[in-house]
């Protein structure tokens, strides 16, 4: 099976969906020069009308994508986590609320591809991991692919979905390479990964470790570090946060009795908080130890390389949390 990068997978999904459906088009900043890598060659292939470089006007073009989607188009918008703040009115007041507020009249098939950089010396204005904010505003689907296979399959599902999809491309996951089958080798001739179905990345028996976005890699690294000691981690990647497959997590906790959640977002009101709260509520009698959350410290991202690494989850912090739930 061919091995591909995360960005290749996103690019393939984009091309396949644009070829399949003429109403799909891409818009965002610097797409034609492919500053972030995933839109290379689109302009030559699909022309200016379907590959739109926008002015630096996030509130304006996020809203324009939504408006276009109300009238039969299926925009793919490329942006960056920290620029979501600039377009927040459209993302919350319109994207989240429009369908429900208008009694189900609106269909908003927009996919926002959101690059999530952090841990690379970009300081507080360029290191946001803000997906949990949108878990608190009902009405959008939140997708966090952590490998190339899921990136392609979830992206294609997002483009075909008739709701607003926010797809967060984690900077740690982006450097990964994974096997992605060619379409000719797939039963349906294409790769589609459903929303709301968690992936048990690694089966194990002692502790359930749920990883969010880049947290999955830390969990897998921790599992390797603990293996020589005979400690077996079950690593679960929810893949989508809205909808969230709690069933898979609760079933795993039923077997292991122990839960660690790893989330690169800031700890307070994170995706990890929601998962921990739900397990505490619905899986309390399975637990043999208090739940541990490994998330980013509740402080802004500092610039200095002496400080920045201190705030994020690491495999070592996951190991420590695992030891805590086992003691």
């Amino acid at each position, binding site marked *: 099976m061919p091995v591909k990068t995360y960005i290749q997978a996103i690019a393939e999904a984009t091309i396949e969906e644009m070829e399949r459906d003429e*109403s799909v*088009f891409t818009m965002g900043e610097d797409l034609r020069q492919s500053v972030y890598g995933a839109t290379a060659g689109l302009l030559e292939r699909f022309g200016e*009308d*379907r590959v739109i470089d*926008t*002015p630096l*006007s996030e*509130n*304006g*073009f*996020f*809203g*324009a*994508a*939504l*408006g*276009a*989607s*109300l*009238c*039969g*188009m299926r925009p793919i918008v490329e942006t960056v986590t920290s620029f979501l703040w600039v377009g927040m*009115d*459209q993302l919350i*007041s*319109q994207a989240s609320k*429009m*369908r*429900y*507020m*208008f*009694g*189900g*009249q*609106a*269909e*908003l*098939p927009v996919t926002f591809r959101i690059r999530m950089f952090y841990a690379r010396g970009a300081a507080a204005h360029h290191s946001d991991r803000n997906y949990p904010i949108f878990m608190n505003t*009902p*009405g959008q689907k939140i997708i966090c692919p952590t490998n190339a296979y899921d990136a392609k399959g979830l992206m294609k599902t997002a483009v075909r*979905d*008739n*709701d607003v999809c926010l797809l967060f491309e984690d900077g740690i996951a982006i450097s990964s390479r994974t096997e992605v089958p060619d379409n000719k080798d797939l039963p349906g001739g294409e790769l589609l990964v*459903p*929303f*709301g*179905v968690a992936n048990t990345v690694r089966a194990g028996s002692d502790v359930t470790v749920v990883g969010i976005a880049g947290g999955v890699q830390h969990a897998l690294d921790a599992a390797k570090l603990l293996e020589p000691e005979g400690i077996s981690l079950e690593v679960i990647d929810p893949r989508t946060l*809205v*909808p*969230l*497959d*709690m*069933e898979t997590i609760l079933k795993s906790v039923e077997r292991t009795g122990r839960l660690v959640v790893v989330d690169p977002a800031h700890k307070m009101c994170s995706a990890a908080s929601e998962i921990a709260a739900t397990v505490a*509520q*619905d899986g309390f009698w399975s637990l043999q130890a208090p739940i541990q959350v490994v998330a980013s410290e509740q402080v802004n991202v500092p610039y200095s390389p002496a400080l920045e690494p201190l705030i994020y989850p690491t495999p070592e912090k996951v190991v420590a949390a695992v030891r805590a739930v086992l003691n």
Partner: protein
Amino acid sequence: MALDKQQLEEMYRRMCRIRYFEEAVIEIHSSGELIGPAHPYIGEEAVAVGACTALEDSDRIAGNHRSHGHPIAKGGDVKRAMAEILGKSDGFCKGKGGSMHLADFSIGILGESGIVASSVPIATGAALASKLGKKGFVSLVFFGDGASNQGACHESMNMAALWDLPIIFMCENNGYAITTSYRNSVSVEHVSDRASAYGMPGILVDGQDAIAVWEATTEAVRRARAGEGPTLIEAMTYRFEDHSLGLDRIRKSAYRSQEEVDEAMKRDPLKIHRAAMMTHAFSTELECDEIENTVRAEIAEAVEFARNSPFPEPGALFDDMWATPVKNTPVSQSTRR
């Protein structure tokens, strides 16, 4: 002026429909039947009706919190509009949107927005869809002098002019953003002066004269359909009522003088149009009265309909969240809890 008698009468019918609808809303509000806020459009009827008369059914509109006039002018059903305002299941939005969020997608009403200027990018996107998909419709967005200062407006106008989008930016300048006067918030003489900064025509028009608004909009629609790009129209109008029903503290405020209000009310758009019908189409007093009487009956019927419409069932709470429901959506989660 190329409007025939039938069109002029239809414009008057729609203006009366808005006026009497709003009067009914005020009455219902004062009786305590209406809980949420509502922003009367009385005094501004000529803008919505003049603009929408220049549009086809397939054209799209979007608007703002002063929301009842736009959909009625576009041909929206007053029964369903009134039911929505009362939070009933027969409302445009099944009672989920209320007064500030009327929408009827089936006739191109893409929705009013409670957040000022927030629907301007949405309407711009509709115009983008029309252009990219060669769909042929134009998009028109109503916004106020207050909204004209929002970044969303400026960003949208820049994109629309840059991409030659088929959109009309219809600024309803009623002089006040709640209590803040236009003079204290806009740096230039007219909002329409800003059009030149984006490279589009800026047209200043008498917003109390429905025919003048129709004429300006008709030219803007022609431009849009011909692929010549957007137009910014500023219709000078006046809000005869207070900003919002239920905001009594603002009602008592002295932000505009009684003399100013009295002076503005002398230019009632309904009276101006009624006179125009007589001049241009030789409509008689009797014909005008008949339109008014028919519309009064229609509004009474709408109120009756809305009152009799059932409230949504509690089971409807989670409906309409998702267009593509999938496994484990938050709705099923919360029922599990």
